[in-house]
């Protein structure tokens, strides 16, 4: 469905992937089946779907935090495992996962430390990233001194510290209030545009998925699979006004109907949505 023109050096190429949990046991779960997806360089792709559709599982397969039961995942032309070892991506989670015993700057330096960078280089890069996320004065603060939105910005700075080409995000704004969320979305777009990063972004929020992405991948559960891919043809220059444009609402509606279609078919099958 998706891979007609995929180039092996695309940042993310997923082919025929299946993920089964507890295979062979009575509580076997088909978390993902028949996943084919290609993400092009510099593209922003959102994954959205109801609970249990496997979007977070898919993200973790890309990150090599889980391994597929079948199929292949190629990151930058390498296996997902090699990509993780080579640190080709940065990841951000719903909890910022900042280390409370390290200052903001030292938190950002963490992946660089693990790569063996020397102190001066690390510090310079951390300062650069703080400028990028607009928090330069907070380098020597501790995480608990920052608000939730600021902590997530630091987490994003950390994810991008080693300048990976690929950013994987699992509902990073889920714990924030709506206003902060919208602000963070705009910031994320700005940062990724500046760095030319490819992004795979998991979310629960339809407006968020549409506002951020070039393409919205709609998934459905039981078994987890890709149902539709919505092309968000709104151009890359998005701002606050974009949220009020009719084109935006049109795309949001398109995604919502795709999701409702899933909901209805689940009901028809007599399955309760949890």
């Amino acid at each position, binding site marked *: 469905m998706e891979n007609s023109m995929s180039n092996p050096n695309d940042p993310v190429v997923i082919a025929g992937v299946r993920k089964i949990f507890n295979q062979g046991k009575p509580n076997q779960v088909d978390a993902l089946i028949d996943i084919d997806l290609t993400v092009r360089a510099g593209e922003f792709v959102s994954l959205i779907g109801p609970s249990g559709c496997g979007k977070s599982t898919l993200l973790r397969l890309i*990150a090599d*935090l889980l391994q597929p039961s079948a199929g292949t995942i190629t990151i930058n032309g390498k296996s997902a495992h090699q990509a*993780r*070892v080579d*640190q080709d*991506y940065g*990841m951000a*989670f*719903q*909890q*910022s*996962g900042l*280390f*409370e*015993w390290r200052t903001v700057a030292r938190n950002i330096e*963490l*992946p660089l*430390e*693990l790569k063996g960078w020397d102190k001066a280089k690390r510090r310079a890069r951390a300062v650069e990233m703080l400028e990028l996320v607009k928090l330069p004065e907070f380098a020597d603060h*501790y995480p*608990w001194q920052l608000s939730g939105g600021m902590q997530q910005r630091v987490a994003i700075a950390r994810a991008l510290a080693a300048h990976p080409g690929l950013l994987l995000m699992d509902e990073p704004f889920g714990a924030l209030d709506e206003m902060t969320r919208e602000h963070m979305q705009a910031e994320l777009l700005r940062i990724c545009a500046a760095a030319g990063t490819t992004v795979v972004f998991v979310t629960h929020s339809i407006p968020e998925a549409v506002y951020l992405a070039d393409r919205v991948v709609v998934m459905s559960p039981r078994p987890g699979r890709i149902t539709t891919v919505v092309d968000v043809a709104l151009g890359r220059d998005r701002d606050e006004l974009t949220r009020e444009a009719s084109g935006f609402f049109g795309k949001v509606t398109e995604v919502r109907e795709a999701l409702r279609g899933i909901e209805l078919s689940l009901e028809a099958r007599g399955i309760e949505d949890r």
Partner: protein
Amino acid sequence: MTTVERVRRAVALVLPPLLLGVVFLVAWQSWINISHVQPYVVPRPSEIWTSFVNDFELVRRASVVTGMNALVGLVLGSLFGFGIAVLTNRFEVASELVNPLAITIAAVPAVVIVGVLNNMYSLDSQIPRRIMVTISVFFVVFVQVVKGLRQNDATQMELMRSYAATPRQTLRKVRLPNTMPFFFTGVRTAAPLALIIALVSEYFGGTQDGLGSKISGTLSGSNKALGFAYVLGGALVGLIFFAGSNLLEYLVVPWRRRTRSR
């Protein structure tokens, strides 16, 4: 908060316990004056203070003996507790074996082992008491550190995996810092315990120049004021240990200053 509000708040916090303490002391002093109780039964607070000041050297010497036993045991027990917990961290069996011992030591009057230990060493040795304190402290700290090592922040662990970090790197950079608050909870709990064990250990024989034996001896005799002076000395040593362990925690685990939820 304005300065006036701050002062008012400080006063509200300090005044009630201070008042309670003063009332208690005054009542004590008056009761003795009124009822003509002899000082060899219960001394007046004023007599206690006089004795404390006059016999300070005696109190100090006894406090040092017991205090040193407690300190040596506290330090050794904490180090062993931490070290062995980290070393055996990989082996679930180790903590499964140590836990029953920890529970037993906590539930039974373990200090009676000192009687056994005294037999194994010469009469003038402080080693049996120090061993006793070390054992008591070890189990407290061990249990806490194991608990801390077991707490794994899921997000932080996933993050480290996404970095392809080795288990050793994960241990050093994530799990050990996360364990420090637990370690210090253990040390804070063990500090007063160390002193109590050091004190009570002296009841079982051996040298009689520590606080425990002095208190027991003088309180059974007629110079009760001196006995209480020794008790006051013991209380002061206890407070020093309490303050010391809190200060250490404050210095080493600064990120916990804000949130003390654990």
